[in-house]
């Protein structure tokens, strides 16, 4: 790879280099990688270019398209009419849709909290007590994650149905008389979400707990800290970055999930993911569906920004 010495601001076509295909390509790579990375030109840009191109085509352009679509109008039979309109955003403010966003955020928050409680225990055990079996246990945590989520959802339906295994077992043991309705309620949706997103929580937590120098914990004990205060004063603060990363990784995909609610949910568990999916696949209102997607992304970005601010100030205290 020849050193890239082209001046960054020069327009593409006017440069003589543009006539040589290979150079023109590296020029384009440079432009793309600068667009994404925004750093000084260097060989690293060339290395980053394929990934940048991928991101540009697979993320940036579709997002721009969604943004553009959200400003259009629904035409007859759901054709997109390319006319500027803010009507879709006005429609979201309609009292009908606000509860859906609220419900989705509540479900995502509940799921994240449950994943954190469950996941912390798992990650802690893995990191401190698992010993030789650690690799195998990690694989076991990942295993459900590798199966198709639709297969997993159907397994849950078989387990939780009114004539399903769990109800039959409980009835067989004489614990209940009439079957409990698990499915098609918020319970089943949250259960499904926790099941799917638990690995997203466990893995960053585990990675973070692994990195805590064991010497610090021993030092705390040497200095007379009880196991409890060792945990609250040393381990927990040091694992804050892992907690934050795990919560983000769980909360964000969870807020847009629609498959779980589609299959395990009922008439009262309609989430924003379902709303978006429904606009594209059923109601044929791509413009409104895009607007809802943009709002969801915006809400999540605002949350993410808040997290970055928080991390910038509060977490530093806990860092080594």
């Amino acid at each position, binding site marked *: 790879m020849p050193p890239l010495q082209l001046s960054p601001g020069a327009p593409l076509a006017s440069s003589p280099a543009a006539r040589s295909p290979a150079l023109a390509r590296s020029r384009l790579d440079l432009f793309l990688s600068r667009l994404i990375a925004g750093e000084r030109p260097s060989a690293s840009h060339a290395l980053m270019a394929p990934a940048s191109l991928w991101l540009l085509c697979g993320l940036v352009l579709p997002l721009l398209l969604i943004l553009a679509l959200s400003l259009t109008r629904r035409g007859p*039979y759901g*054709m997109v009419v390319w006319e500027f309109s803010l009507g879709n955003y006005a429609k979201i403010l309609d009292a*009908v849709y606000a509860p859906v966003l609220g419900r989705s955020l509540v479900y995502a928050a509940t799921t994240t909290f449950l994943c954190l409680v469950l996941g912390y225990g798992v990650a802690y055990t893995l990191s401190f007590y698992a010993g030789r079996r650690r690799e195998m246990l990690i694989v076991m945590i990942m295993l459900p994650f590798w199966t198709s989520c639709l297969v997993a959802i159907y397994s849950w339906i078989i387990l939780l149905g009114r*004539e399903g295994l769990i109800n039959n077992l409980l009835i067989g043991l004489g614990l209940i008389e009439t079957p409990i309705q698990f499915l098609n309620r918020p319970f089943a949706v949250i259960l499904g979400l926790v099941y799917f997103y638990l690995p997203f929580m466990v893995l960053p937590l585990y990675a973070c707990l692994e990195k805590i120098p064991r010497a610090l914990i021993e030092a705390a004990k040497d200095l007379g800290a009880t196991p409890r205060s060792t945990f609250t004063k040393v381990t927990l603060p040091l694992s804050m970055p892992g907690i934050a990363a795990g919560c983000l990784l769980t909360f964000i995909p969870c807020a847009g999930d629609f*498959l779980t609610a589609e299959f395990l949910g009922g*008439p009262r568990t309609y989430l924003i993911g379902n709303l978006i999916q429904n606009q594209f*696949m*059923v*109601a*044929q209102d791509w413009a409104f569906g895009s607007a809802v997607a943009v709002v969801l992304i915006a809400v999540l970005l605002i949350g993410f920004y808040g997290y970055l601010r928080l991390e910038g100030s509060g977490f530093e205290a806990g860092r080594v």
Partner: protein
Amino acid sequence: MRATRRDFLRIAALAAVGGLPALEACRGRDPNTVNFFNWFNYIGKETLPRFEKEAGIKVNYEVYSSEEEMFSKLKAGVRGYDLFVATDYMIPRLKAMRLLDPVPHDILKNLRRIAPRFRDPSYDPGLLYTIPYLWGTTGIGYNARKLAKPPQSWWSLWDERYKGRVSMLDNLRDGIGVALLLTGSPLDSKDPAQLEKARDLLLKQRGILKQYSSSTFVDDLVSGELWLAQGWSGDVLQAARENTHVDYVIPKEGSFIWVDSLCLIRGAGRRAEVLRLVDYLLSPEVGAEISNSVRYATPNAEAIKRLEPTLRNDPRVYPPPAVEARLQFYAPLDPEADELWNRAWQEVKIL
């Protein structure tokens, strides 16, 4: 286990939503392959394998689980389907969007087997663009063992005694349609007040509803999980084949009848192979096999003669004139009504 195949199809249909590009790559450009897009669970087990063997043409078969899903894919310009199945009310819309090619009547020699009453439908006079495939009705599937007496009326789907045991089709034509029927409004209403009344009626039902579903209700009827389900005739009768307590009724207030048709997608290649498949599907033996298997009625006059006698004489499949008088086609909706209906249905699902 019977559920397996159905589940697989539903999973396949949903996976298709998520994996459009991947599937698109699978859809062959091979000149000897025909791509057929159909409702899930809507063909005989042996139908296509036998065609492949006889004709030496490979059929790439894909399924959808809702009319809207199919329309979304075609509208989005998903390429590569050659032949697909659409319900009557979709036809004017598909025609208006220029998605269909005319049917070459002279090439399809089995087209004459279509019964006269299906040759001149209001949605496509003279069958210029469609070839009737199967037809059926919308009604109530119920579990006779769980109910004191068989339901007669749509209102039984609003009965508090069946709380948590009721399901409705996840389909705005049947959902809003029945609600308009029960509130005494015209079935092609575009009066916001009437649609609001229909919406409120459906909202009132939500407390006792287990789910909106156009596919899983069949298994739930079989397992006894559901006692009452709004459903399509053939699907319910498939459930009845598995569980003898399941029965089907067309409510006294009236209901819907519909025809699903084979359509040729505009500008698709492989025309000769596609037409060969269509003609094969229209042949009396194959028509009868499909109908026997999926329990929907066939519009093929020759195929009817070859049906299992129990199916041919089943008034739930071929309603007697007195019942048929209560049935009507889904009204085609103009864009304005389409928008209003969609909004009402959306609100039913959300609120």
